């Protein structure tokens, strides 16, 4: 029982990060039908640039903010330079383009930051707080609160603001959105920026706990993709639920079965879910179009 509480804390922490990455996946997927395999690279770039700006002497909040801004610029460039020129490409082709982009970004990161592993200091101290027999680090709380804030902000953006509604309109039907005077290209660009910002925030939130290197984005990106699929591709709240669930499954699997097989357990559960519900937990069942 005590162990369970500890698993819950670590599971929700990792799960929060997966949720943010998955949310980024589903925003881009909704806006442009592209599964962006460079999403994990956003996480890495956000964290790594914040780390090096902090080292360079910027105050912590400013370094974090600049880290996010740099990542947003990368996201915008990805849309403008790689996705937009290939507008008539098929799903598989765009997947390869984003994989190419992710390899390219990793290559650039390798040149700039080298192969070493870096971490950020915790936002506010590292004195553990004890709850019963479980302990929680202040950073764990930051991760959960930060994720909750980001998710609520995204929800507000899509539900209440004109721009958010315009992006939603594009995801339902691009042509119709264009006909009512929405600048579709600009909305796609904004979705890439937003998604990059979410990824970078995830990276900065988790860097004090897990450390980062130029290759850290790959697994985080894959897990985010899993979470998005688990929740149902394209459903924003599904992505959040999927992320948290994935984090919990992983930690509980690692704790009770085997830590070496923790990723295998997570993927196994996802495959089972897909076999039973082929469109994810919160996804709408798709009907074939003839």
């Amino acid at each position, binding site marked *: 029982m005590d162990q369970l509480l500890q698993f819950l804390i670590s599971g929700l922490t990792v799960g929060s990060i997966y949720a943010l990455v998955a949310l980024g996946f589903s925003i881009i997927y909704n806006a442009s039908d592209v599964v962006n395999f460079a999403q994990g690279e956003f996480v890495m770039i956000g964290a790594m640039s914040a780390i090096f700006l902090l080292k360079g002497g910027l105050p912590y909040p400013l370094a974090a903010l600049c880290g996010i801004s740099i990542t947003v610029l990368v996201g915008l460039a990805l849309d403008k330079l790689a996705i937009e020129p290939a507008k008539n490409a098929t799903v*598989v082709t765009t997947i390869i383009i984003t994989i190419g982009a992710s390899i*390219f970004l990793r290559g650039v990161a390798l040149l700039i930051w080298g192969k070493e592993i870096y971490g950020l200091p915790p936002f506010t101290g590292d004195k553990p707080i004890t709850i019963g027999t479980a302990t929680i680090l202040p950073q764990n709380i930051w991760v959960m609160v930060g994720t909750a804030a980001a998710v609520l902000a995204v929800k507000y953006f899509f539900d209440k603001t004109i721009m958010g509604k315009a992006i939603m309109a594009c995801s339902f039907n691009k042509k119709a959105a264009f006909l009512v005077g929405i600048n579709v290209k600009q909305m796609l660009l904004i979705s890439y920026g937003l998604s990059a910002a979410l990824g970078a925030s995830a990276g900065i939130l988790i860097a004090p706990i897990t450390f980062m290197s130029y290759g850290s984005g790959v697994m985080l990106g*894959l897990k985010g993709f899993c979470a998005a699929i688990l929740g149902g591709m394209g459903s924003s709240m599904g992505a959040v639920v999927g992320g948290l669930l994935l984090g919990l499954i992983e930690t509980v699997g690692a704790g009770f079965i*085997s830590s*070496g*097989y923790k990723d295998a357990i997570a993927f196994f559960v996802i495959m089972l879910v*897909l*076999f039973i519900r082929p469109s994810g937990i919160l996804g709408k069942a*798709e009907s*074939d179009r003839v």
Partner: protein
Amino acid sequence: MKRLAGYYCFAIATLMLPLLFPDSYYVTVVGVTVCTNIVLAVSLNLLMGYAGQISLGHAAFFGLGAYSSAVLTIKYGMNPWLAMTAGVIAVTVLSYVLSRPILRLKGHYLAMATLGLGIIVHIFFVQADQFTGGPDGISGLPVLSILGYPIDSDLKWYWTFAIFMLASVLFSLNIAHSRSGRALAAVHGSEIAAQMLGVDTAKVKSHVFVFSAVLACITGSLFAHQQDFVSPESFSFFFSIELVTMVVLGGLGSTFGAVIGAILLSLLPEVLLVFEDFEVMIFGAILMVIMIFLPQGLFVAMEETFFRLLKRKSQGSADVTS
């Protein structure tokens, strides 16, 4: 005869190479890698290009073939051919059992499930170290011999792989023009339309999945004997992605597209070695640029341009005569 003219040229070129350059590193070492990748890309193209079912876990079957050969011959002293057969049987059963639930999925969900399969198998290779030797892998496979002739030199391995590769390519070219090939194409076009025409789509998809897995498995066995060493690294998620890239880069659905893609992606790292630290970045950039500007694939784009030029030329000469 005309349909296979390109194939015969390719076969002659492949078989001439070791005669012209018997000592070249590019024939005996890189050549074998190229042949391995061609068979894998061609087998994946059967599933992805012909039947339209994406797979991000193809390296798993390649790895299962390699590991069943390595583990059964080294740990259990089994005859290499027997070990290879055992691997093929295991992969046939596994892929058949998995094919129905996996291929019921579509699009991104199918990508996810195959990705999961690849990662689970890879983790198993790393973790089950009492069998697989863990991350370090295992080495010391017995020499493979065909009808009493041992394959014990690099050049002999080139011949083995070249013949195996040419047979696979020929098979893939021929299947497109058979009843099953047309059924696959119908499934690719529209599953519902194919069903209406009386194609048992579930069966067709499951057969091509099993076949493609078994071809990868046999390649894995040969690869293990040729390398004399297996480690999980060769069968990771990245390799699955690389295989998909080969197929798409050359041109999805075209056998020669897969061949060209495989050749290109096997040679590119050799060429980019000169750039040292810039290698990863340039590789990513090349991938992006080709896919952005030639989304239908390199080979298919070349083919189209060639035929367009040919047409224009014949039109030109027709004008002169009239």
